[in-house]
């Protein structure tokens, strides 16, 4: 009996989480524009989607920014983690505190402070500034994924490699990198998805001419969202699901090690 109650409770909570998503996906197959009335099954919105230059452009911007920011943040973050790990106690503490700042700052403050920076330095806001902002909020997550792997590593193997005649660059490539690779990949995937989902920081660091999907949705929200957006998000949801399953597999595998 209690078992039944427990499962019923979990089912209810999950229902609460999934109802809006299911509604959204169903709407994307609705022939009519109305949000409440079902007017028959149609793939019309999915076809419209690929014909809409605004949405396709936003998709392109979202995906390239996510890829580039994940790539750059992963390189910078991994190098940073290796450097911070080699530091002595006090500078290490300082660097970790500084790394935590962007993670505890509300998104809106991060976004606004970066907007102030770009206006102050007279860099016109657009693609590049959005990319810089995304890299900024991604790096800490990469560092925090790589750091535990570095701590698990045998601290003498790097020095042993040097003693055996490896150059620091060679030792980095052949000794440190393979050991921290799972953390690097997790950090990269995390960065990619965080960048994909970001709205607030993008909103403040781009111009109305360069829109990613989130800012496009925001600007359309007042006029009413077209079902094409629902179609796109249904498509993206499915692709993210596949990506998520990959991440999760990796995470559970690294947790076992």
């Amino acid at each position, binding site marked *: 009996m209690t078992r039944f109650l427990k499962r019923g409770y979990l089912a209810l909570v*999950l229902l609460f989480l999934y109802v*809006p998503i299911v*509604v959204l996906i169903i709407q994307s197959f609705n022939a009519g524009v109305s949000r409440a009335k079902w007017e028959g099954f149609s793939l019309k919105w999915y076809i419209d989607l690929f014909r809409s230059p605004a949405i396709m452009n936003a998709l392109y911007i979202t995906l390239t920014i996510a890829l580039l920011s994940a790539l750059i943040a992963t390189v910078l973050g991994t190098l940073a983690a290796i450097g911070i790990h080699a530091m002595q106690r006090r500078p290490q503490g300082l660097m970790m505190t500084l790394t935590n700042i962007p993670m505890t700052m509300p998104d809106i403050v991060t976004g606004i402070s970066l907007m102030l920076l770009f206006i102050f330095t007279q860099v016109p806001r657009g693609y590049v500034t959005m990319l810089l902002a995304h890299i900024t909020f991604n790096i800490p997550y990469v560092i925090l994924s790589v750091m535990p792997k570095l701590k698990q590593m045998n601290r003498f193997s790097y020095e042993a490699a040097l003693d055996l005649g490896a150059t620091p660059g060679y030792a980095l490539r052949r000794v440190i990198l393979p050991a921290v690779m799972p953390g690097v990949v997790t950090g990269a995937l995390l960065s990619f998805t965080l960048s994909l989902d970001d709205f607030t920081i993008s909103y403040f660091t781009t111009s109305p001419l360069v829109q990613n999907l989130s800012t496009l949705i925001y600007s359309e929200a007042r006029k009413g969202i077209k079902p094409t957006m629902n179609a796109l998000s249904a498509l993206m949801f499915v692709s993210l699901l596949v990506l998520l399953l990959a991440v999760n597999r990796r995470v559970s595998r690294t947790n076992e090690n």
Partner: protein
Amino acid sequence: MNGRMAFPPWATALMLLALAAFVVLVVLSIRRNRGFRRTLFSFPYSLWIVVFTIIPLLLIGYYAFTDRMGQFTLDNFKTFWDSNFEMNKQLTQLGFDPAALGSARGTVNVDTLVYSLWMALACTLICLLIGYPAALFMADRNFRLGSTLVILFIIPMWMNFLLRTIAWMSLLEDNGLINTLLKALGLPKAQLMYNSQAVLLGMVYNYLPFMVFPIYNSLSKQDRRLTEASMDLGANPALTFLKVTMPLSLPGVVSGITMVFMPSVTTFFIPRVLGGGNTEMFGDLIERTFLSADNWNVGSALSLIMMVLILLSLSLLRKVDPEGEGGSMI
């Protein structure tokens, strides 16, 4: 607008000085380190932090403590306390008595902050009440599906947060699904949108997974022998839960509270979609002050107040949970 051009040279000098001091500090402190050459790998990142985190924060600080002409002032904080402050000041300068004209203290900003704190508190409490039992049931070792179900809590978060919130609109609005259902059952229509409850629902919906995760993590890591020992020693399940399971899960609860409370104070967008006229929250206020009212100085002061509040509550929570348990959120 012209206030922005009046960025004085001393402020630029101050920032360059901060940058130089930081670099010197880092270099000095790593000087006598065996791993010195390896610490150089973090140099690009150090520079990145200075340019994209520290300087932007200093800019917020700069605007918060200056007026439009770049002069030092505390007026922006006074405007937080009294939103009519600037107007009354001008009235006084023109020789009027604001009190006589019936221009009282404007409480919009403080009220919005208090409202946001209440909403965040309510959201955190509801998330805890819904999330704790859910985490507890999933962490049950006799429940094989548990670890799979946890993943089901993550998946919704990967759909665009704006669209998820908008999807609630089609459920709640006057001709929405819930009202259509009520009508079909012959029940009267309910006003579900444009009030605080709708905003609260949207917040709980968005932040619930952040509460479930850390609690689930700390519960599933618990040594089951402890509960077995408690039962062997004669405690019933309820007492075991109260005296063993629950106290051990407190670190997870604390990080859950942190992860829900922080973002919900600055909730942005949800009140605009689901809320009505009186449901503006602090995040929206900051955005409006910056972009619509174009007042960077007051906007920066509001951001600064927000950050201080968050740092204060963080340090309070850190005291309860020094290890930062369950901070990993994937």
